[in-house]
């Protein structure tokens, strides 16, 4: 079974630039999550989709972050404009059931 795919794996940008991350969940998984993991911290949920609808985006900084999940499959997370404090690993996860979330390898973002 193929895992959760994410790209790019690494991205370096200047502050105030924009950046986008892509996630392809495990086939058939209805729920998709985007997390932000700052160095030395646990993952923090940014947004949760059920199929192509948003279930929870209470911790998404909506003035600069946006996410979409077209057709209930792939998803993109965008930051515009980026700030220094956005430097982190962005993790995508998917699940078919409540019990287990499968995580991708993450995208490491460095904002200079």
């Amino acid at each position, binding site marked *: 079974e193929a895992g959760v795919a994410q790209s790019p794996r690494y991205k370096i940008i200047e502050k105030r630039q924009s950046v986008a991350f892509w996630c392809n969940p495990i086939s058939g998984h209805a729920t998709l999550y985007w997390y932000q993991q700052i160095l030395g911290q*646990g993952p923090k949920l940014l947004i949760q989709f059920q199929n192509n609808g948003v279930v*929870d985006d209470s911790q998404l900084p909506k003035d600069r972050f946006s996410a979409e999940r077209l057709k209930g499959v792939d998803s993109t997370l965008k930051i515009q404009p980026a700030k220094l404090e956005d430097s982190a690993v962005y*993790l995508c996860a998917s699940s078919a059931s*409540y019990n287990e979330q*499968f*995580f991708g390898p993450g995208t490491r973002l460095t904002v200079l």
Partner: protein
Amino acid sequence: EDQVTQSPEALRLQEGESSSLNCSYTVSGLRGLFWYRQDPGKGPEFLFTLYSAGEEKEKERLKATLTKKESFLHITAPKPEDSATYLCAVDAEGSNYKLTFGKGTLLTVNP
């Protein structure tokens, strides 16, 4: 607000030296407590889910237990390949199945 505190922040063991990691939590109502393992440069990997006080689950050298206020991850006779960061997360009732993670415990097992 749901809170998860893991201790210690880092733990260094000799191969074969058993120990425990702690996860204490504060939630309005616990629906599930999750343990994940995270290797450097990778996403977290699911280990266990515990649902009620008194529940225990085992996998190879790992055993997770749950009380009403905390969970322990016991590591018996660890090997160097058990070195990783271990993350604890809780799902609270009414949270739309949103996980709140602790900061993790970095475990290093020396040969």
